[in-house]
């Protein structure tokens, strides 16, 4: 089962893709995706309901968040009320330790994304400030990476023993599915996804040329 774990819709300030258009694109282009996760910037969208689209297109659509920390951007899967109140999703300088701790305490999974990117990537901050405790997963394939960024991420993830996943980081419809994650088990819910991520039963995939 293949899911794009990192996408943005018009709910993000810089997103230009409507969720139904993502679905249409996946089916029209026959992309090998079984679903995707919406990771809106600095917020958790607890109002949108995509169940009708899931039924119409036969896709799994889950919701998560992309938050900003002093060590770059972090995807958070399994956001709940406790986590929303544990730190300020809108801030751009959340201490990463607090985000990782809060996610663990609230039953969520936090994973740095595009870690090889300057300014907003985990490993760029490692160079200056040293590594942090509590990181298990990082996004090694990101659809918005510049040449060399993913290679750097993959090498550093291996060095630190982090498991790598993939996501397109799409902000427009045609970018969805550039990178994704293939799971060994069927995923039907956020709980399934978090269990698979915690268990390491997945591989990062990329279709970038």
């Amino acid at each position, binding site marked *: 089962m293949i899911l794009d774990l990192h996408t943005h819709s018009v709910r993000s300030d810089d997103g230009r893709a409507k969720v139904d258009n993502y679905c249409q694109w996946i089916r029209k282009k026959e992309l090998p995706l079984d679903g995707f996760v919406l990771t809106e910037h600095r917020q958790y969208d607890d109002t949108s309901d995509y169940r009708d689209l899931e039924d119409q297109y036969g896709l799994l659509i889950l919701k998560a968040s992309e938050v900003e920390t002093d060590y770059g951007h972090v995807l958070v899967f399994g956001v709940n009320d406790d986590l929303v109140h544990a730190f300020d999703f809108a801030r751009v300088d959340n201490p990463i330790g607090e985000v990782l701790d809060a996610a663990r305490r609230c039953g969520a999974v936090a994973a740095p994304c595009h870690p090889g990117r300057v*300014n907003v990537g985990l490993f760029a901050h490692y160079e200056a400030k040293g590594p942090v405790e509590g990181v298990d997963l990082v996004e090694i394939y990101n659809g918005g990476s510049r040449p060399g960024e993913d290679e750097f991420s993959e090498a550093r993830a291996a060095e630190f023993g982090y498991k790598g996943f993939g996501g397109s980081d799409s902000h427009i419809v045609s970018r969805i599915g550039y990178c994704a994650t293939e799971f060994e088990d069927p995923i039907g819910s956020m709980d399934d996804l978090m269990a698979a991520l915690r268990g390491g039963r997945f591989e990062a995939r990329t279709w970038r040329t």
Partner: protein
Amino acid sequence: MANVDLQAVRDEWVGKVYDTTEFPIDAQHLVDWAVACGETESRFTEPDDADFQAHPGYVSHFTAGRWTPKGFPELGNGRGVDGGKAVEIFGPIRPGDVLTASTEIADVYDKTGRSGTMIFVVNRMTFRNQHGDKVATVDWRQIRATDG
């Protein structure tokens, strides 16, 4: 993080209308705009069409008399770029209409990216016709670079 208290800026400025400008709507301008956009639907290109109206992006070219309100703080390090406009249409705009645009600061926020921390200032123009009907909004994002 941007070296400024953005919450204080939001508290002071968001929602305050700082410019009001009228824009009369001319049929030929509507046609010219639609044609320049490559539009072929007659309701946007033919004044004789029973449903002739402005192309959805038409209002995006109108600008307020000021970029920011008087007294608005200098944010960032002076370098800025145009972050684009988002248009939302609520009703048709017809030739002969006189639109009144009220402009306010809709949001001020920061975010981080490859180039560091950036501050976004969102200006919202709300267009109402001569009947008082809201017909469109245009959100324009100014992006201010910081040294963060």
